């Protein structure tokens, strides 16, 4: 069951900072939860690199394990099995001061801006708490740093004595962001930072995250179920289905040329705010619902809903393989569904051209014979 793909080779021990090298690497990471007598396989063998300075988007349907993976990466929960490397160092081997430093530099922004802030603490104390926990700044210096980061995040620094309920959803999310930034981390896991916000407010946070990335040279693992948002923000996107990564690619490439049938279906399912495009679009309607991670389907987890599944799909687990330029997919028939869609469109246009030629026939070019199929 363990699989070793090209991407899964352990990162080299001589870690070099710089754009393009892996800041965070996961190798065959598992996370399981007991559920009665059964086991929830929330993260089920994930190998993934997050490169220095990039935004890696992580998408997938509800319950597929995105938040769990985020919590494992930030060490809020221990992995059941597998290794996690930060700057080339195995986290399992970190102790004492090294571990503290790693925890300072890896932060998480939480899914729920309403539930994740302590209602009895002032905003200034909420944002400054990590400084206190790490003993990094006190008194006036702490206040100064808090107010500075509030300003950076578009919050009025004079509001540092107010309580969270006095702020709107968008502002509360900014408070959460300010808190995660105050320790000047390098790596941030942003777990659905905008899903709970109103549409008109979402763009404020998206733009803020982009601006902060430029200013502080941040690396993001950006979790969301909204592929449009993820694509807008991310350099690369990883697609997750039932605890496993089924595809990883550059954002543009993923959209133009999805290799995994699930990604194709997912992309086709997303409506576009444009009625002209919507009129001509025929989404691939996936039958059935997402299976349970307690008893996931054998071999390829997607075979119960896949429009092109073959017998092998329920017998052999497909490996995450590189199809060129770091475009990874785990499917025995990678690219086949997208290919057949393109073919179908091509066939339709051939038919149209044919129809046009036949319609033209009486007055057509002298001597030209209609194409016969």
């Amino acid at each position: 069951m363990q699989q070793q793909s090209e991407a899964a080779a352990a990162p080299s021990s001589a870690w070099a900072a710089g754009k393009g090298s892996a800041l965070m690497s996961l190798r065959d990471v598992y996370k399981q939860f007991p559920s009665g007598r059964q086991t929830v396989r929330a993260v089920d063998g994930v190998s993934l690199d997050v490169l220095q300075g990039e935004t890696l988007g992580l998408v997938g349907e509800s319950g597929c394990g995105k938040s769990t993976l985020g919590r494992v990466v930030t060490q809020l929960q221990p992995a059941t099995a597998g290794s996690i490397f930060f700057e080339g160092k195995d986290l399992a081997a970190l102790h004492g001061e090294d571990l503290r430093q790693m925890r300072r530099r890896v932060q998480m922004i939480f899914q729920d801006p309403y539930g994740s802030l302590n209602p009895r603490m002032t905003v200034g104390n909420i944002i400054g708490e990590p400084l206190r926990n790490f003993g990094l700044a006190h008194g006036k210096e702490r206040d100064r740093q808090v107010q500075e980061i509030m300003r950076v995040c578009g919050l009025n620094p004079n509001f540092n004595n107010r309580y969270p309920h006095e702020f709107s959803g968008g502002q509360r999310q900014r408070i959460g962001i300010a808190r995660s930034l105050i320790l000047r981390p390098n790596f941030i896991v942003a777990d659905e930072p905008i899903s709970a916000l109103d549409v008109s407010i979402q763009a404020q946070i998206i733009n803020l995250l982009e601006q902060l990335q430029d200013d502080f040279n941040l690396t993001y693992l950006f979790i969301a179920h909204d592929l449009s948002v993820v694509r807008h923000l991310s350099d690369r996107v990883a697609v997750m289905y039932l605890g496993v990564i089924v595809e990883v690619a550059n954002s543009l490439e993923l959209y133009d040329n999805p290799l995994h049938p699930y990604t194709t279906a997912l992309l086709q399912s997303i409506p576009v705010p444009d009625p002209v495009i919507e009129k001509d679009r025929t989404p691939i309607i996936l039958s059935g619902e997402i299976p349970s991670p307690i008893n996931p389907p054998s071999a390829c987890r997607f075979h119960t809903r896949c429009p092109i599944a073959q017998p092998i799909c329920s017998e052999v687990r497909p490996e995450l393989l590189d199809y060129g330029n770091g475009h990874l997919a785990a499917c025995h028939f990678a690219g086949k569904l997208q290919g057949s869609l393109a073919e179908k469109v091509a066939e339709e246009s051939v038919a149209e051209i044919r129809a046009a030629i036949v319609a033209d026939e009486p007055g057509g070019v002298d001597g030209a014979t209609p194409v016969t199929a």
Partner: protein
Amino acid sequence: MPAILEVKGLKTQFLVRGGVVRAVDGIDLRVNRGETVGIVGESGSGKSMTALSILRLVPEPGKIVEGSITFDGRDVLAMNRDELRKFRGNDVSMIFQDPMSSLNPVLKVGYQIEEAMKSHDRFSAEESKSRVPMLLRRVRIPDADRRAKEFPHQFSGGMRQRAMIAMGLSNEPDVLIADEPTTALDVTVQAQILQQLRDLNRELGTAIVLITHNMAVVANICTWVVVMYAGRVVEQGPTAEIFRSPQHPYTWSLLRSIPRIDEKLGGKLLTISGLPPDLTNLPPGCKFHPRCRFTVDRCFTEEPDLFNVGPQHESRCWVQMDNVPDPDSDLREAPVVPLEEDAGALVIAGEESAAAV
């Protein structure tokens, strides 16, 4: 085409400690037979209250204080209990925002659908029973006979939503109001439900009023769009027209603030600054002016009517986006991280009224 459902000047309000919440503040709405109408707007703009008002289901302490609602020539606000009972379900039925809270957890799904028919007069008790599997099959629930005998918790989210649609359609209403029917669902399941609604509209001719905050969902199934802000209609027209050439600054901004799956990458999103309005304390003039980037002097003092801005196309604004030279220039200059100077105070006012509920 004569409208089957017509709402005029509707106002629905809540009296709370902090004052009067103007949840619906003068709505005009027409739904023609067989049409698909989308109502969009952000959270709190009054979409659900408009729908609940139409069915006269406004929760206490809310009241319809003004306006008229006419269904097929009949005055809904004048209906007595018995007439109302028939009206809900037979004429207009509604699928609620949260399917779990509207299905009774201790009753079998099929039984609940059967009861929905028995409590109206269109079908006999026997017919009601025999129609259940057909209705479940119509919303593509496989193995319908067995599924009818299951309880709601045995259904997945998507199946529950489909069971709700089956129930909403059980008495063959002329109009089906669906309040955020896909919001809690994942994209692949959302696509199934939208396909479902489209098919039903085509096959049965049921008019559909779809309430959502997702512009893309509207583009997907509606022929007519109504954009709401602060309890009023700010723009409405044929879907293609609204998306191609939005005339109200709110609609225009909204369409530019959402990332699209097919966009060219590298662009900045437009941000609508500030917060949604406090409905107990609406600003003077145009209700959108504190967040609008295209204001003229009048906007601050005088509220505009819904003006004709094209055939069938109306906008409640002193400005037409068509007449704004280079509206995007503003977007390029806008600061990326606007400082929300006075926002704290604004929210406190809103919180107080919410706390009083």
